[in-house]
């Protein structure tokens, strides 16, 4: 019993240690999943504060097939009506994206 609690303390020290010591909090913030809804041939509002490692969940609520295709080829999500798909933002910087089928559907994700 004593051994187990000691082990728990060691584990807590290992996991918690870096959080409160050397590494800045922003760099260790858990990645978020943000939803972007596609409907009526438009991409809905885009999340403002995106960070590297975050995920976009693209939800196609439209009656048409759409894609969310990054111009830098970092993601290409192809969605039939009613489908959804995830894209992990692997790098920082602006990422321009379009729907390959409907050229006026486009946007830019700002990833910090």
């Amino acid at each position: 019993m004593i051994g187990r609690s000691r082990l728990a303390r060691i584990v807590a020290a290992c996991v918690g240690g870096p959080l409160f010591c050397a590494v800045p909090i922003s760099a260790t913030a858990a990645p978020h999943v943000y939803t972007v809804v596609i409907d009526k041939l438009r991409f809905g509002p885009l999340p403002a504060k995106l960070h590297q490692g975050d995920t976009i969940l693209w939800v196609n609520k439209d009656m048409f097939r759409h894609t969310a295709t990054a111009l830098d080829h970092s993601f290409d999500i192809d969605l039939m009506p009613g489908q959804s798909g995830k894209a992990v933002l692997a790098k920082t910087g602006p990422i321009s994206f379009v729907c390959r089928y409907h050229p006026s559907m486009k946007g830019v994700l700002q990833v910090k």
Partner: protein
Amino acid sequence: MKSQVSLFCAATLLGLAGPAVAADAPTDPQIAHIAYTAGNIDIAAGKQALAKSHSKAIRSFAQEMVRDHTAVNNKALALVRKLQVTPEDNPTSQSLTKDAGTERAKLAKLRGAAFDREYINNEIAYHKTVNSALESTLIPNAKNGELKSLLQTGLTLFREHQTHAEQVAKALK
């Protein structure tokens, strides 16, 4: 004599009543018929392209036309059933169908790059024509809110298709 009268009546209807109907505001059953016909024409053109073209870009575009217009027309069918409206044939639908038949026959005689060019150029022209009809006549005259909303989605879609067709045409050259 009787047949002459009938012919006269038919001619009068075609010559006077036809343009009169077109000039008058179309009713919702007529608007539904025109919109459905316009979609069906583009589906048929897309299927013709899929049967004849070997171009990846043209085939992908044609698949998109078939897919998107089928989706809108399915919604339109569900809506007219819900509203218990019977779409009504009219001179505008007839004119669209007649022109589409002429274009279809023209395309049937072409092959390869000549077919691809004619198909995509006609898609640009056709979408422009339908966009203009939706904007100037069909949407402003639609009485039912759900029909109007579906037509507005149709207009957004047709505009996207026109832009996409222009991109495909540019890439073919």
